[in-house]
């Protein structure tokens, strides 16, 4: 399988460097998972709390490998007609209308009904051919000639039937369309499934996937991410921001701020020309980090300690 892929995968280091080039700072487990995904040709199920960069991983991988990204957002009630393919009913109807005269011509000479039916049967496949097939994300990913990065986002939101339906695609990279036959991937896509863990995925699905759990980052990794993602932030402010957020995560909060919140906050501070973190600035911008009133109140009450942690990072 490795031979099929565009760039030869060498090692965890190459992947880390490659992702860093597109501003995604990958921890070692992430890079290892990606390496295995490419070399074993297996999908990766990415779990972790909201905002730790699950979706971003897929986007960045696509950018790094210069592959098209095909994204499918899952939701309750998603079914194969929305995920895989759909017949263009309207077009089919229109064509039957337009071709009515032609059909009359063909059938005109036939003597009886059986004869007409026999003749019509010769043409019936015409309306169920690729021409009338509306490819949805999954089919698109399989038909992409150069391979693709397929992102199946928030797969836990879809119902279990859909999960079962994914199995064929994930293990063999092929789908079966009853009217046409089996379509096999030109080049197996690199598949990412993300899950927010609102429910447990089935064992069958997990078995077919590599499982990557992205935890909240430690201070060093987070600082590297902030530096890469927030243009124009200086090193001192980065240290302060990261130390503050890390201290915030130690509190008992309903929703801990994750990387995306840290980045938003850092951007906000840069935008407000804040040179360093102080009480007034934090008070004004805390709602970027924390999304619950109760959490904000709690953080306010611990503000002195939090600020001390941020200053200590200098």
């Amino acid at each position, binding site marked *: 399988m490795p031979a099929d892929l565009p760039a030869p995968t060498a090692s*965890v280091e190459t992947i880390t460097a490659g992702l860093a080039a597109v501003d995604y700072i990958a921890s*070692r*487990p992430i890079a*290892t*998972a990606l*390496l*295995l995904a490419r*070399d*074993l040709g*297996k999908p*990766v*199920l990415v*779990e972790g709390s909201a905002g730790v960069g699950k979706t971003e991983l897929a986007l960045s991988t696509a950018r790094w490998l210069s592959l098209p990204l095909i994204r499918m957002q899952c939701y309750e009630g998603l079914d194969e*007609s929305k995920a895989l393919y759909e017949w263009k*009913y*309207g077009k089919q*109807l229109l064509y039957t209308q337009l071709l009515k005269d032609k059909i009359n011509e063909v059938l005109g000479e036939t003597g009886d009904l059986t004869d007409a039916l026999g003749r019509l049967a010769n043409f019936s496949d015409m309306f169920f051919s690729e021409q009338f097939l509306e490819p949805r994300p999954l089919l698109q990913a399989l038909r992409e000639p150069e391979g693709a990065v397929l992102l199946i986002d928030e797969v836990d939101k879809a*119902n*279990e039937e859909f999960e079962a339906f994914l199995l064929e695609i994930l293990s063999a990279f092929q789908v079966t369309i009853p009217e046409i036959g089996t379509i096999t991937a030109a080049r197996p896509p690199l598949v990412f499934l993300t899950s927010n*863990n609102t*429910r*447990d995925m089935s*064992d069958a699905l*997990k*078995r*077919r*996937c*590599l*499982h*990557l*759990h992205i935890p909240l980052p430690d201070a060093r990794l987070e600082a590297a991410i902030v530096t890469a993602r927030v243009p124009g932030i200086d090193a001192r402010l980065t240290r302060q921001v990261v130390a503050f957020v890390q201290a915030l995560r130690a509190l008992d909060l309903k929703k801990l701020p994750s990387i995306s919140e840290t980045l938003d906050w850092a951007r906000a501070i840069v935008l407000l020309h804040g040179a360093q973190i102080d009480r007034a600035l934090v008070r004004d911008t805390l709602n970027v980090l924390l999304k619950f009133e109760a959490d904000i109140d709690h953080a306010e009450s611990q503000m002195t300690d939090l600020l001390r942690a941020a200053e200590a990072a200098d």
Partner: protein
Amino acid sequence: MATRPLEDFIRALRDAEVRVSVAETLDAHRVVGLLGFQDRAVTKDALAVTLAKSADEKTRFDDVFERFFSRDLPAAPDDAAAETANDPVPAGATPESAADGDAGDAGDGRAPADLADMLMAGDQAGLAAAMEAAAAAVGVGDIRSFMQRGVLGRRMLDAMGLRELERRIAALDAAGEAAAAEALNAGRRQLLADGRAFVERQYELYGRAAGERLRDAYLETRALGRIDRHDMDRAQNLVRQMARKLVARHSRRQRRARRGRLDIRRTLRVNMAHDAVPFEVIWKQRKITRPKIVAVCDVSQSVATAARFLLMFLYQLRDVVDDVHAFAFSSHLMDVGAILDDHPIEEAIPQILAAVGFRPTDYGQALVDLTDHHLGVIDRRTTVIMLGDGRSNYGDPRIDRFRALHDRARRVVWLNTEPENFWGLGDSEMPRYRPFCHVARTCRSLADLERVIDDLLRVGRN
């Protein structure tokens, strides 16, 4: 050769309740083939990605990985021997035999009589290999209980030739070669310590998890009131697991469609685009409603532990059930919903017990309070769960109020911590309450509790 440790490792993982399928085992082999064992960190990450499939399993994986690969594998004998040669020579060893290049090679085939030589030579690799072989021979990996450690350790060392060694020490002693005897004896003591440590690790790897499972099974059937304080944590964990299992089962049930009935309205709407030609047919789904639960717990001394578990269960169950109203009483009734909401479970329960617990029971008063102040939360969708022994200290049981409750609620379930043949003895009012319960059952263990709650959730609207 390199795959043997992997299989042992997977076995250890399975014992720690990380589910590893055959397909995943194959994947793990491919991963190791691809990356090898050279870089410990990379191997760990790669195996974690392949074998552990939830956050929970990841933690257990880390644990097992650290414990498993902390022992010295007998892999790559020439490397190990080379290391031994470079090691500072242990006390009592003769330098020339320590430099022996292929010392570890014959590890498993070595005759027990060589034990003394290996000890004298300080041949750690050879000893480790011999120990692995002996351990496999007497089945140390099958260790299941803490108690087996001594016996298995002894048997393993015997298989390595400990007896022979002891005879030799005695012989040396008798021959007056005290220095040689002492040197060998020091080696023997070291060997005993190593053997003990080895068996200990094996127990940690293979035995402890099995032991814990046994303990869980035991707790599940144990009477609620009798769970010891130090088992409380485990029991709490168990409750959490049960609740989660129920949540999963219930949400699946909720979605199951009732086949065979066409939903005409939705079908027409969806097919508007196709001139209302029904290309796409939509079937009616049967909704299984989430029940509303009002739980009333007796927290007087006699049933306090059981109430603790019900409260715990309700706390965990709030994911599935839209509303859970929880009340606790000894005599006067208290709404404990707010306490459960605001505090972690470990704090909430003692607080509740401190506020209303451990007083003489008065069911009559509690029922009056409930019907006077909280009738609003009870309607025809509500299931009322009474948890208690039904012993009211000969006070007025206020059957009239209980009847009102019965008439109003969808179901009234009484979970009694006493066995049925005790109902009606002494001050028990159970026989009088019972006609107004839809279900009255003995609930003495966590397993009982799980069954009852599962029944509750099955309530469907037909």
